[in-house]
């Protein structure tokens, strides 16, 4: 009996080792109905892509827009993206989640239907399908709210904050809004800041809300009517608590050190940022509390790994005159590796004032 079982097990293992036993996904990425070469395909284990985790697998499309990536049997989420320079010279980001997510990979290579990337961000809003989108009315205290911004995000992982939204519109005098979108799945948030601005973290007293029906599924040729979308004032205490629980949360893994100016004097009030991406662009994965009067900082991390570390006196938006900025220069790429549970000393990080 034992010999029989071992024979069956060996057969299964052998089958798994053969090319016929390889599992994965393959398909084609498009942009405006044409194959898209040189795009990146990222495979995640979770649908709500956590930016603190790297993709499980990554590949690129060939000149015919095709990709193929080997993954073990399981459940996966695909995202396609490409940063490129448009014919007019502006840089644009193309991106889309695979509409077939999640993908169940059991045996062999799963064929994924072609899907199109969309133009994202400030250099190009989402390109709507005809007669397709979302409409509603933003309220506060039961009253229509004019001048509020409604933000359309294609991912929920950002916490529906920050500049990664695909589209933003402002409500009319009666609080109504309407935004054209391509068919897909979206997350909506709305805010009205006291200073009337479109960007920036909501402050105490600003009106803020995320749509309770997120994510919204928008089908081609149909405008989803949301009805009332209620906002509430941001409470100062809740905001502080959220900051404490969020990027400033204490963990057992951290970097520590001191921020100093070019004369070696402490640079209080400057934040330290940690990125997983060596380009150090966009939103950092972790942010420290402002450095103390002695320039000392501790940056808490979600886990071990290699992080790319910079420091800046403000966060969000382009670098402006009067800001302090610097990088960890222990390595040319500003990277530093820490193991889970460790507190790694970084020494002094020198920051300079930019004019």
């Amino acid at each position, binding site marked *: 009996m034992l010999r029989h079982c071992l024979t069956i097990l060996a057969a299964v293992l052998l089958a798994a080792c053969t090319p016929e036993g390889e599992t994965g996904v393959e398909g084609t990425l498009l942009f405006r109905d044409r194959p898209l070469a040189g795009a990146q395909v990222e495979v995640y284990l979770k649908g709500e892509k956590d930016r603190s985790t790297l993709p499980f697998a990554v590949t690129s499309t060939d000149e015919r827009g095709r990709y193929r990536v080997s993954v073990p049997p399981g459940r996966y989420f695909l995202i396609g993206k490409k940063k490129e320079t448009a014919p007019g010279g502006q840089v644009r980001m193309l991106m889309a989640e695979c509409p077939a997510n999640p993908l169940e990979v059991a045996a062999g290579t799963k064929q994924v239907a072609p899907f199109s990337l969309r133009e994202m961000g400030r250099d190009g809003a989402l390109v709507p399908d005809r007669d397709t989108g979302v409409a509603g009315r933003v309220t506060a205290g039961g009253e229509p709210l004019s001048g509020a911004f409604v933000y359309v995000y294609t991912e929920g992982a950002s916490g529906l904050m920050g500049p990664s939204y695909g589209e933003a519109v402002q409500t009319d005098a009666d609080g109504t809004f309407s935004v054209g979108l391509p068919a897909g799945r979206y997350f909506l948030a709305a805010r009205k800041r006291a*200073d*009337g601005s479109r960007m920036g973290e909501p402050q105490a007293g600003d009106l803020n809300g995320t749509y309770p029906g997120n994510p919204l599924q928008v089908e081609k040729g149909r405008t989803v009517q949301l009805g009332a979308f209620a906002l509430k004032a941001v409470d100062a205490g809740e905001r502080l608590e959220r900051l404490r629980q969020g990027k400033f949360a204490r963990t057992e893994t951290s970097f520590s050190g001191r921020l100093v100016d070019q004369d070696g004097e402490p640079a209080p009030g400057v934040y330290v940022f940690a990125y997983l991406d060596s380009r150090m662009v966009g939103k950092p994965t972790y942010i420290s509390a402002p450095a103390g009067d002695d320039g000392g900082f501790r940056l808490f991390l979600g886990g071990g790994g290699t992080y790319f570390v910079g420091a800046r006196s403000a966060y969000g938006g382009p670098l402006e005159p*009067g800001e302090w900025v610097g990088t960890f220069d222990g390595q040319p790429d500003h990277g530093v590796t820490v193991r889970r549970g460790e507190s790694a000393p970084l020494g002094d990080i020198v920051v300079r004032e930019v004019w």
Partner: protein
Amino acid sequence: MIRLLALLAAVLLPAPVLALTLSGDTRWQGAIDFAETVRVESDAVLTVAPGTLVTFRGGGLEVAGRLQADGARFTGQDWDGIVLKGCGAETLLHDCIVEGARTGILVRGGQPRLEGLTLTDNGVGMELRQKTDASVSGCSFRNNAKVGLFVKDEATAAVIGSRFEGNGRFGAYIYRALPRRFSGNVLAGNPTGLMVSHFGSDPRIEGNRFEQNGLGILVDRAAKPVLAGNLLRGNGTGIRLYRRSDPRVEGNRLEGNEVGVSVAFSSYPLLVGNDLAGNGTALLLEFQSSDWERAQGSVAREAQASARGAFGQSSRSEVTEDERRPRQLSGTVDARGNWWGTDGTSELARIGSEGNPSFIEDGRDTPTFVDAGKSYPLDRALFAPWSGKPLTTDTIDTP
């Protein structure tokens, strides 16, 4: 109501109070101390009576509603300052002193009126941002550690009749903004009186007086303001045009400066109708070459664009190279139609349009310069025809 009672108690009792939110109409008078931020909600009105002394030992004053303050003093040490968030024209600060803050007054959007204020000994005296259309008039920006007045972020504010004196780095700094007026101001004794920087900063700077600054006006990084009818006297350099800055410089009087106008790194202004008499050097060209621009200009600008990413790795794409590049490269800077003084005019009459005027330093004096091991020809100034008489005697109207 409880909050209001707490505030009244705070007014009556000398002990500092903690964070407060004002949701109704409130009047401050006498001497008040705060230890944390006071917020004025969007429907609330805070009135600060003349003679009131408001001291912040921490935090600051955030106003989303309306603030009306006349003759009050807001003070503290390294406090947050006053933040006006989308306040309308009903918000009026008049004849107040704001001192000791990191940023004395930060205006985010809205149209508040800021009149006759003194902003002194702050990190930054006042910062106008987020497209604010504020009105700043008759204010004094003195001895602020970095900048007297920052105008940023597409602000369209008017800045008139104000004085900027003895600030640490810049009297005023216009960064990616388009103030609808910047006139009738005096900028004196600052390292740089006025900085106008970055593509998109194209305001009209008119009828101001710049005296005893290291640099009177510095235009940098593809900004294209109009500098008209200003008086620049006794500065190290009157006007410096740097890194692709192409302003129109017209009808100004520059006198008693070590250098009148300095032009460097692919800047191609139009200098016309100015009085440039009585400066050490009237016009100075440095590192200014059409050949260099053809060979290195776009590369240098790309490096600058990359550096705009906070950590040096990213490139922002808001401004294209096509927008920043010079339209024509003739190896000359246009300085025709200016008055160079009585002695200068005599000299020009003697040497003619092909001569080398002693008051202009350009490629006639220093034929080449070296950058990265390669030699480039220095541009020349076009100065003929010139004016035979002063041009601004009757036109300059500065405070």
